[in-house]
């Protein structure tokens, strides 16, 4: 009997399935949510995940999954255990057409593993606001009603951006928001954030105790006046269990959270929530380390999915329906690698959005101990640029006339005291020569004092990117990956729309830092200045949803306009990016797409 291959050992769930109704490419936030709903509806689902499996017993009904994740800075921050490794899967980056793209070690790359990137950070899951889904109409209505209102990307400047309304509304999505908040176990507080949208259900879980730095910055925010009233800090909604929940333990606030996998499964990674449910249903099979290299199609029908398995062998699945959920960069790249599939509009890969982040910081004289707590416990939404309730946009009176500034939700943050990568590396290898401590007692004493790891605190504000046709992923003309395929080439530049929001809110961000007790504040230089790509980990667009096949790639149900059985259900379908952590909306949109495909209603799974 031949020895069992590696790939055979990486097949989970119902191993006897060989014919599939649906094949999902990617097991992250979108893919696992869809797998759960489709398998619950009785459809046989194959999930192909390119990344490794980091759990034991994930498909064992008798035992809780055992995470192979840990509080280990070498494993994560230093050696990239959950990273898409640039050495074998490089990407190239440039800011503008006409420039040569260069290989860059981190083109806003997302973690790649069974369960996807969601568990990589703090599982922050605010909802979008109702106005986000009709942003273009809302701005145009305001421009018509407000003399002197100028907005970059609108009016005379409309050609510079591709704003559009979503083909679905907040009300369409609300039941799915409620459904995914329940299955992933979201904690939050109702009523502490006047800008939060209406909701049909309470948060499933109450908040934890909150991090010290979260309380310090909340106090600073309450002491800061904005438009004549104090700011409104609030608990940051997160898919982290604060009580025993659905077989998961309560989070112990270990502190090695952002950038790490969760050792206890308190974080609602799709692996231990929706994907596990799908695997236990009898209707789902997961193949890990299965790297999809292309799709084949005949007319309007996708006929097969080709992949390379964990033994390096070429394999093929021929399902009834294919769903792309490999993240916006990789989902769009797969279409381009498959003979420009679904691209009669020429829009595949375009309107890539990253969220321009502004990071204001200061040094607290006493220790912030950001190594205790789940990375982000508090934040504020005042700088999103909407009226309370989020139904309408806020018009600001400025000396130049009325203006809109669509910043975003703010996270109160600090280092997690990762002593190697957040302290040592910075002092010895990242600060310019003469400004840091390269070696010797100066370095050792800096490590002892932890001037960053124990004293830096900050605010990260998201800002809505104007969608731009030129911001896109296409295939690099020369650089190849380990599979011999052209790598994604990212072209991305900032638009005046988000630049103005950053400029407007920066002084207020700094004031919060200073009111929280930092003697001085400073602003982290923008990535664009050094020619580097953003590191937001918010990656959206590229297969945008819309009603018009000439200007969008997918329809309101996530189905490609050009194909009868090809769907996308990750961040790629976002029409606009809004200004919040996008994952909850990815989950809700994926849930809606899957339910409509299966013919079921939210709550049925």
């Amino acid at each position, binding site marked *: 009997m031949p020895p069992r291959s590696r790939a055979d050992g990486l097949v989970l769930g119902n191993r006897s399935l060989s014919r599939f109704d649906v094949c999902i490419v990617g097991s992250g936030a979108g893919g696992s949510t869809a797998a759960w709903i489709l398998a619950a509806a009785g459809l046989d689902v194959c999930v192909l995940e390119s990344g490794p499996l980091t759990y034991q017993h994930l498909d064992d009904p008798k035992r809780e999954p055992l995470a192979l994740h840990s509080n280990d800075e070498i494993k994560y921050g230093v050696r990239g255990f959950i990273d898409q490794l640039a050495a074998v899967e*490089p990407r190239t980056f440039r800011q503008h057409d006409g420039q040569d793209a260069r290989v860059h070690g981190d083109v806003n790359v997302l973690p790649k593993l069974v369960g996807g990137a969601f568990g990589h950070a703090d599982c922050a899951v605010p909802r979008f606001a109702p106005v986000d889904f009709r942003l273009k109409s809302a701005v145009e209505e305001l421009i018509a009603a407000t003399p002197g209102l100028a907005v970059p990307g609108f009016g005379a400047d409309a050609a510079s951006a591709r704003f559009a309304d979503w083909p679905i509304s907040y009300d369409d999505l609300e039941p799915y928001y409620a459904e995914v908040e329940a299955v992933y176990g979201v904690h939050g507080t109702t009523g502490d954030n006047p800008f939060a949208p209406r909701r049909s259900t309470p948060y499933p879980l109450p908040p934890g105790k909150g991090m010290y730095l979260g309380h310090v910055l909340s106090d600073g925010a309450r002491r800061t006046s904005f438009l004549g009233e104090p700011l409104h800090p609030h608990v940051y909604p997160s898919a982290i269990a604060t009580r025993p929940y659905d077989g998961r333990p309560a989070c112990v606030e270990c502190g090695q959270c952002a950038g790490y996998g969760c050792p206890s499964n308190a974080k609602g990674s799709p692996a231990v929530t929706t994907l596990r449910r799908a695997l236990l249903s009898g209707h789902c099979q997961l193949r890990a380390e299965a790297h999809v290299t292309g799709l084949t199609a005949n007319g309007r029908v996708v006929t097969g999915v080709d992949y390379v398995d964990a033994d390096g062998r070429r394999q093929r699945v021929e399902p009834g329906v294919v769903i792309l959920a490999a993240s916006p960069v990789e989902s769009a790249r797969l279409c381009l690698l498959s003979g420009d599939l679904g691209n009669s509009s020429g829009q595949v890969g375009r309107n890539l959005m990253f969220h321009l982040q502004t990071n204001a910081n200061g040094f607290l004289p006493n220790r912030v101990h950001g*190594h205790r707590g789940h990375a982000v416990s508090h934040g504020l939404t005042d700088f999103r640029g909407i009226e309370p309730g989020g139904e309408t946009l806020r018009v600001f009176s400025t000396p130049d006339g009325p203006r809109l500034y669509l910043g975003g939700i703010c996270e109160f943050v600090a280092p997690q005291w990762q002593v190697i990568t957040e302290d040592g590396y910075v002092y010895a290898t990242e600060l310019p020569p003469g400004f840091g401590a390269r070696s*010797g007692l100066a370095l050792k004493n800096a490590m002892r004092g932890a001037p960053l790891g124990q004293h830096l605190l900050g605010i990260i504000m998201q800002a809505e990117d104007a969608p731009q046709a030129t911001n896109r992923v296409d295939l690099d003309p020369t650089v190849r990956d380990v599979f011999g395929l052209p790598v994604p080439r990212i072209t991305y530049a900032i638009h005046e729309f988000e630049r103005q929001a950053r400029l407007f809110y920066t002084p207020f961000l700094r004031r919060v830092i200073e009111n929280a007790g930092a003697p001085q504040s400073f602003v982290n230089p923008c990535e664009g200045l050094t020619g580097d790509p953003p590191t937001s980990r918010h990656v959206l667009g590229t297969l945008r949803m819309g009603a018009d096949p000439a200007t969008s790639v997918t329809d309101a149900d996530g189905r490609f306009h050009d194909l009868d059985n090809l769907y996308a259900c990750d961040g790629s379908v976002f029409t606009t990016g809004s200004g919040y952590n996008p994952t909850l909306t990815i989950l809700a949109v994926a849930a809606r797409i899957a339910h409509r495909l299966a013919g079921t209603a939210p709550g049925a799974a």
Partner: protein
Amino acid sequence: MIRLRFPTVPASVTPRPALPQALRWDAPPVTAAALLSRRQFLAAAGVVLAAAALPWTGVRRAVAAARGRFFTGHERRTLGALCDRIIPPDGDPGGAALGAARYIEGLLTALDRSRRRVYAGGPYSGRQPFGDPRDGTPSRRRPRNAFRRFLPLSRLQEIAWRAELFGSAGVPEMAAIDASLGSVKEGLRDKYRAALAKVDQVSRATSGARFVDLDPAGQDVVLLLLDQGAFAPDPRRNGDTWPTLLVRHTLEGCFGPPEYGGNRKGAGWRTIGYEGDSQPLGYAIYSAAIDDYVERPDHPLSTPDPDEIGPGGTIVPNPLPPDAQRIQSSILTLTAPFGGGGLC
């Protein structure tokens, strides 16, 4: 998590000793006679240059010293001395005593056994107990150390790490990438072997003795020189030079989890007051008795550290060491031009 960025600035105005031109990585090709003397020197230093230049082969693997060992005795001593200048001993142990060189040798030999030693296991190290969910106190129950059981690599991780350690030229799966980039990736093993020879070359040429034979002050001078153009920027490693890799690896070896071979018995963490991996106890324990969290009074989650709380609950910060203050001042200086948020 905050990822700070710094603008590039002109080279430091601080006067530094200059590296002789002939010792620069981009020095003009040496003459045959000079090459001969260099070879003789390297042989004397115990380095077999020809072997170092060979690709890794099964034969060479077979004749290599015991598994888990890569360096010659002299190389290992040189590396230990370098680690001790990067994190020097004072009242607390330095890089050598913390096992930083052992960590680096562990990295370079991580693929020598069938059980790869790249990623430690999980979920827990056993350094902390479980919390007691009944009342929210630390329990006496301790998990076993799962860090010790290193994880198998995925197919792509294996390819990436073989290229990282042995160089991409010997990894067939890297051929397409290498061809498209027009370069091969140098392996860390070859890099370290060549670099340690270069350290002695610079040391002899500028101080008249091998690195290990210099006193700490003399070693510090050589260490400075090594940063003055002795090593080429590596285009396949973001342009980093070997001294940058060495400094990073030394920090990892001093302050990473002990299962990787450094941070001996956690002494590196104690030196800087770091509490280490905190799971599964963490900093807030769920109590079923009150259906809420209980914090650890000595390691609070939501309030200031107890040693910085003065009379009446006021905050009394512990003074920051001058070397740490200087880092903060540097960052305020470097980022000052960007404070308006408009440069973007």
